[in-house]
């Protein structure tokens, strides 16, 4: 059946900011959907609060609303746009939840309102409600986990007698899963169950059969409205049940099931999607398999496009989101051609099941080093912030490629300098550690296998399937063989064998203590070079012209070099805190801009969640690790005229010095170094007479102390060549300095990222307290013209990492002349660095002095935000400039337009603390946000309000505000208290703050005790933590600055985080919040499209005070 003609406009709900569990895979799926639906002629309306996404580019939808994703706001968009249909299945859980909230209020999915396409409300409810789902599955004869509830120990014993041990016990109505445990023995059961009954406020526990250690599988299913169903990809988890699939190493295709078992699972998955009633689109069904009996149980089902479907799309080449969007508007699978196997002469339909002739391994990347206090133990709640995928012909090859893609200093499975810490551990210690799932487990297992510990023993400890362990031991055994052979005796066959097992040149260099360059030379001399194979969905059964490749060591390479003008774009690798979707946006824009300008673009990246790794984003895609070896290999095959290293964040930038410098597009590697090298940078600033905070560089404590003796405390201490404020600290005294230096020198995670050395010294600068931070993004072309993209004023003061601080464009409080000074400084620095392309400069304004903090001649994370705020496609313009175009030419061409004004855009960071209740949510110089949102409105207050709403910070209109302020913040706090009071809110405060407020005639309603203190009468006084837990506080202002009261504040902030009470940790944010609230009161929140903002008259200059 052809597409529907009874609907003309479709609202797509995006997934909002990047958070743990919802990363850029939904930008990938949403972007695909927008493109497809527009191609089909529908009017596409998009709602998404995340400005860093590609889908929110005004080119991708007819009406793009960068507005908070709450049901109220989406209702306002529906009211304004009156779409015929809403597509809720491409925006992750956020999209689904909002759709359900709208449905429950009768705003969509009922007659007279927009139709829900893809999945209807009943299907969503069936899949999302645990109990309804279970009953539905049992109803169609599928096996589910046996479980029961109990209110007494007798009931509990009866339940466990029925389901058997081991069993999981979960107390009902307990936040954060406290009291949950697994009982393996009857004694343990008695203990955990009785504790659980006590802990539960309603004395109820859920007892469920434990699948801990079972094998875990996922199937990606698609269905059309004619009930055709296909499986796109089967995924096997290397980490067994017990670790969230998002935190598991996963492998495609399924490796250890017989066809009989696989077909049983396939039948179950098809039955599941039919029963749940997902009418069209993709779903994901998860299974657990008991390894000794093969018993299969259905665990859960996602009635929407998911993270796994993004992975499945990249793993097979089958574009699930694109097809799902077509199915949603009425096509059937057999009506849609398979893009991949489409050639000039034939095409096959999308109604088939992809087969692959390679192995895909996905490994998550975590950010525990940024979250002190987090246990690092993996469990059923997802904690990773990103992932890598690697393709190899075999599992060992793909595993080793994936491990080196992670960019955590590992060159593969062991056999690298970073394995030193493991080789010192005893067998017992290693085995005990490997039994606990953590980020390090895979390397611990590798080390155990290297030592020859039996596979059975490792399996018993880890429950990792013996097949995977044996494949891993092929790597470790080969290592021993290679060590034995020695580099001089290597033959063509032995080189080939090593490379086919995924060994990197770096690993071999380490093994034989030979420089990596020599390994490369010798290997190439033996005639062993990588071949590039094609991802084609059909294991070569049909001709395919897909430009999607991976390297492996085989006979035949399928890539044919073209004679076109070619540019290689190096992507940004796995998402991590400090380097995320913004950089993917820049790389994708570079590819689009260069293709439009007639270049062939070659993308190299290893992140399966991204738009950049979509096979039709660039002329060719190489799904490869971003290491020197792998990048040089691509350069050797493609012979590009230029390589773009400055748009993907720190990952490609670090490679800039390792590839031929004449290939580096735009700003020269020497200039990049000049900005990074402290001595050279100082010379530049001195020459320009631009003030810098006093400081110096140190490679040890002695040098560090010499600097602080001169400039005094507090100082800002940071390593060079890292992004996201990694390990950055504000240091107040000599002891603290000693600790900081020690961490930087010896701290494992930082050691992995480059560590401390003469080449990479620590930077120590005077910390400018109370400074206003300003960020500038600018572009300079080869004629010397400088375009100021945007000047952003941070809401939080200096000391909070710029990535975690809210910022506003144009600057709301800076005087116009200060902005002009900043612009002049930026232009001068860009000129001195001979920048060709983007530069980001950070300033700190103290009184009337503008200090420059640092300059980075590369794309910054604010580039997409600035582009959306001003309408200037900065990344595209910069890319063209890097390849030689001038700003004047781009203006004439129409690519570069004047920035628009008349509104204020606020960017706000989104933090991961609700996943890590044990981590102090106070903001500091180390970046910890995972994503960002944008609020855009006619005034700063309204824009800030929207940004907070979008970030999930509920600014209160009723209830009580709790204030606890450090001394320097108290004057501003007084203003905050008065304004909240004026808005009709109650005020509670700690004693000191309350006394201060009272002195200025602003008494509080309630004085609260300190958390660990008894009152004068010896009674435990009511504390903020108590009130937060009781739901009596609607907003928390707690500033942690200075050493005082830190632990108390930490408890309060953690409590707020745990109970989802909005909390700001700077007084500036509190002032902005109260301003936003004041402007918001009594008015309806209005929504407006980016297209409307961008059609407004140009404001003449990108900068300008409000």
């Amino acid at each position, binding site marked *: 059946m052809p597409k529907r003609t009874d609907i003309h406009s479709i609202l797509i709900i995006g997934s909002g900011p990047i958070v743990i569990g919802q990363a850029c895979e939904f930008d990938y799926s949403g972007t695909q959907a927008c493109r497809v639906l527009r191609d089909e002629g529908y009017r596409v309306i998009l709602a998404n609060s995340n400005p860093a996404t590609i889908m929110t580019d005004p080119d991708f939808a007819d009406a793009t609303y960068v507005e908070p994703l709450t049901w109220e706001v989406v209702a306002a968009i529906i009211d304004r746009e009156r779409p015929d249909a809403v597509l809720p299945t491409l925006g992750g859980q956020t999209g689904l939840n909002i759709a359900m909230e709208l449905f429950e209020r009768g705003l969509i999915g009922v007659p007279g309102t927009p139709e829900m396409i893809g999945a209807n409300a009943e299907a969503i409810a069936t899949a999302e409600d645990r109990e309804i789902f279970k009953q539905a599955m049992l109803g169609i004869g599928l096996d589910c986990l046996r479980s029961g509830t109990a209110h007494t120990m007798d009931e509990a014993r009866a339940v466990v007698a029925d389901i058997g041990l081991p069993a999981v016990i979960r107390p009902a109505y307990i936040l954060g899963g406290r009291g949950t445990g697994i009982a393996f023995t009857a004694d343990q059961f008695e203990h955990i169950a009785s504790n659980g009954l006590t802990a539960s406020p309603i004395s109820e526990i859920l007892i469920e059969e434990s699948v801990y250690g079972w094998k875990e599988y996922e199937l990606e299913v698609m269905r059309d409205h004619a009930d*055709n169903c296909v499986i796109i990809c089967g995924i096997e988890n290397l980490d067994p049940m017990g670790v969230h699939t998002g935190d598991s190493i996963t492998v495609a295709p399924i490796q250890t099931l017989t*066809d009989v078992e696989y*077909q049983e699972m396939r039948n179950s998955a098809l039955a599941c999607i039919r029963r749940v009633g997902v009418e069209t689109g993709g779903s994901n069904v998860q299974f657990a398999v008991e390894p000794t*009996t093969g018993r299969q149980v259905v665990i859960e089902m996602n009635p929407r496009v998911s993270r796994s479907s993004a992975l499945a799309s990249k793993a097979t080449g089958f574009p699930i989101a694109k097809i799902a969007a077509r199915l949603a508007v009425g096509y059937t699978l057999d009506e849609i051609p398979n893009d991949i196997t489409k050639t000039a002469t034939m095409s096959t339909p999308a109604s088939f099941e992809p*087969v692959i002739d*390679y192995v895909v391994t996905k490994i998550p990347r975590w950010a525990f080093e940024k979250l002190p206090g987090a246990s690092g133990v993996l469990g059923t709640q997802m904690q990773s912030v990103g992932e890598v995928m690697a393709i190899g012909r075999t599992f060992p090859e793909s595993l080793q490629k994936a491990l080196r893609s992670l960019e955590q200093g590992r060159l593969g499975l062991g056999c690298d300098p970073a394995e030193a810490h493991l080789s010192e551990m005893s067998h017992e210690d290693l085995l005990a550690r490997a039994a606990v799932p953590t980020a390090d487990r895979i390397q611990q297992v590798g080390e155990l296998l290297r030592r020859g510990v039996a596979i059975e023993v490792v399996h018993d400890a880890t429950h990792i399937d013996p097949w995977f362990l044996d494949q891993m031991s092929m790597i470790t055994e080969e290592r021993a063989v290679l060590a034995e052979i020695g580099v001089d005796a290597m033959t063509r066959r032995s080189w080939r064998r090593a490379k086919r097992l995924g060994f990197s040149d770096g690993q071999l260099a380490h093994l034989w203590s030979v420089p990596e360059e020599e390994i490369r030379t010798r290997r190439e001399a033996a005639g062993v070079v990588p071949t590039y194979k094609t991802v084609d969905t059909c294991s070569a059964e049909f001709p395919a012209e897909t430009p999607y490749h991976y390297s492996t060591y*085989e*006979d035949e390479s399928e890539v044919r070099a073209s004679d076109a003008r070619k540019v290689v774009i190096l992507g940004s690798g796995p998402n991590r805190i400090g380097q995320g979707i913004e950089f993917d946006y820049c790389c994708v824009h570079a590819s689009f801009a260069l293709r439009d300008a007639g270049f062939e673009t070659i993308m190299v990246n290893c992140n399966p969640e991204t738009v950049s790794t979509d096979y039709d984003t660039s002329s060719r895609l190489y799904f490869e690790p971003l290491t020197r070896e792998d990048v040089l290999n691509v350069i050797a095959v493609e012979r590009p005229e230029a390589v773009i290293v400055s748009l993907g964040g720190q990952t490609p930038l670090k490679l800039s010095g390792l590839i031929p410098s004449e290939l580096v597009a735009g700003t020269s590697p020497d200039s990049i170094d000049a900005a990074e090298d402290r001595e050279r940078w100082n010379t530049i600033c001195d020459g320009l007479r631009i003030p810098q905070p006093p400081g110096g560089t140190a490679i040890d404590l002695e040098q560090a102390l010499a600097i602080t003796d001169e400039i005094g405390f507090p100082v800002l201490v940071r390593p060079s060549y890292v992004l996201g404020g990694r390990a950055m600290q504000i240091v107040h005294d000599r002891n603290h300095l000693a600790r900081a230096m020690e961490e930087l020198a010896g701290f494992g995670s930082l050691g992995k990222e480059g560590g401390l050395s003469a080449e990479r010294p620590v930077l120590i600068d005077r910390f400018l307290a109370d400074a206003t931070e300003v960020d500038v993004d600018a572009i300079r072309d080869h004629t010397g013209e400088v375009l100021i993209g945007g000047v952003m004023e941070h809401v939080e003061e200096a000391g909070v990492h710029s990535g975690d601080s809210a910022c506003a464009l144009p600057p709301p409080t800076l005087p116009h002349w200060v902005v002009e000074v900043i612009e002049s400084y930026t232009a001068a620095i860009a000129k001195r660095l001979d920048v060709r392309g983007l530069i980001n400069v950070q300033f700190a304004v103290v009184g009337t002095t503008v200090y420059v903090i640092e300059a980075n001649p590369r794309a910054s994370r604010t580039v997409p935000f600035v582009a959306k705020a001003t309408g200037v496609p900065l990344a595209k313009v910069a890319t063209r400039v890097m390849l030689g175009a001038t700003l004047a030419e781009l203006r004439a061409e129409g690519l570069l337009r004047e920035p628009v004004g008349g509104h204020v855009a606020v960017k706000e960071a989104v933090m991961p603390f609700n996943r890590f209740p044990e981590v102090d949510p106070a903001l500091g110089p180390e970046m910890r946000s995972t994503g960002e949102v944008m609020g855009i409105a006619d005034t700063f207050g309204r824009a800030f309000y929207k940004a907070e709403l979008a970030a999930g910070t509920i600014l209160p209109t009723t209830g009580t505000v709790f204030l606890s302020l450090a001394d320097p913040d108290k004057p501003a706090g007084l203003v905050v208290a008065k304004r909240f009071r004026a808005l009709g809110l109650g005020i509670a405060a700690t004693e000191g703050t309350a006394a201060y407020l009272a002195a200025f005639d602003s008494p509080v309603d309630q004085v609260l005790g300190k958390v660990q203190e008894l009152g004068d009468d010896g009674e435990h006084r009511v504390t903020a933590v108590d009130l937060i837990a009781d739901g009596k506080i609607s907003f928390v202002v707690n500033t942690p600055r200075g050493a005082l009261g830190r632990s108390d504040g930490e408890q309060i902030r953690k409590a707020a985080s745990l109970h989802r009470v909005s909390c700001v940790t700077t007084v500036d944010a509190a002032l902005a919040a109260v301003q936003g609230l004041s402007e918001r009161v009594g008015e309806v929140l209005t929504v407006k499209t980016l297209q409307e903002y961008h059609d407004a008259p140009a404001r003449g200059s990108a900068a300008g005070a409000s």
Partner: protein
Amino acid sequence: MIREGALVLADGSVFEGELIGADASIATGEVVFNTVLSGYQEVITDPSYAGQIITFTTPHIGNYGVNAADFESRGTFCRGIVVRELARRHSNHRADMGLDEMLRQHGVPGIAGIDTRRLTRLLRDTGAMPGAFGAAAEAELRAAADGEPGTDGIDLVRQVTVTDGYTVAARDPENRTLIVAIDYGMKRNIAVNLSRLGTVEVVPATTSAADILARDPAGVFLSNGPGDPAMAPYGVETIQGLLGNVPIFGICLGHQLLGRAIGAGTVKLPFGHHGGNHPVRNIATGKVEITSQNHNFAVDPDTLSGRATMTHVNLNDGVCEGLRVDGELAFSVQHHPEANPGPHDSHYLFDEFAEMMATATSQKVGR
């Protein structure tokens, strides 16, 4: 101990690898590929691969071992296997032994470490090609490949069919239905599926129509099998004697023989269909089935007119996947509804056969 070896094709292409499985100085056969992700044991034991060397496009083969239940016939009939990587350790609760051990037990040689994707691309472009592998010198292997006749013009059915018939009891002891299954190289799971419909008497491929009709079966099943249908004229003759006298259901080679029996033509496909993921449309319902496929020949749909109706079509290349003989109770499909390996989407065809037999029986009773 690594046994180095090579695979040489008739066109002179050489592939380096390591020998696995049974010892054989030189193995020869027609080299074909199969794209299934799982089910290597079923493929290796499928008699339809008689005379062929099977290349698996899936790199890891042997991961879950082999087990007694998943044999698709009494042994193996293929000439060898070509893989990228043979698992040295298997892992599955159903496994009885490793694949390498099974290959040795059944005398199947193999070669591993091959760039199977290069080989598959070559076979895709040139068609199935004779080839030879082993430890012998390249020239010797080349000569062996050149001397290998391939499967064209050879009656492979006689090599694989049973010499003596046997009976598979009905699953339900009360079921009195009798089905005669002509074994051209029948997969075990077909018999398993038929036994749900009645007692199955499996007879050799050369059995005459009169012999079969004398058994008074409720229906006759025409099995899958290897090679070119034109090489089994005895099969066509038998089917012609059965048509109109008893309901008929054919699969794969059985389908092609039914086509020839009604006067339709058969053609050799460029490289055949060998996999578990082919989309087939049931023309009557419009629904798409994902099917298991293994054949190099097909019924020419242009020769059906006036004799039979095409019921199923392959959506990848338009190949005829099923037919129903006009005016008779006889139908057949090119793909494998019995799966093993592959999806179960077409399983309903066995039920249609049951209905057809019931219809015929009630008509007989009514008469």
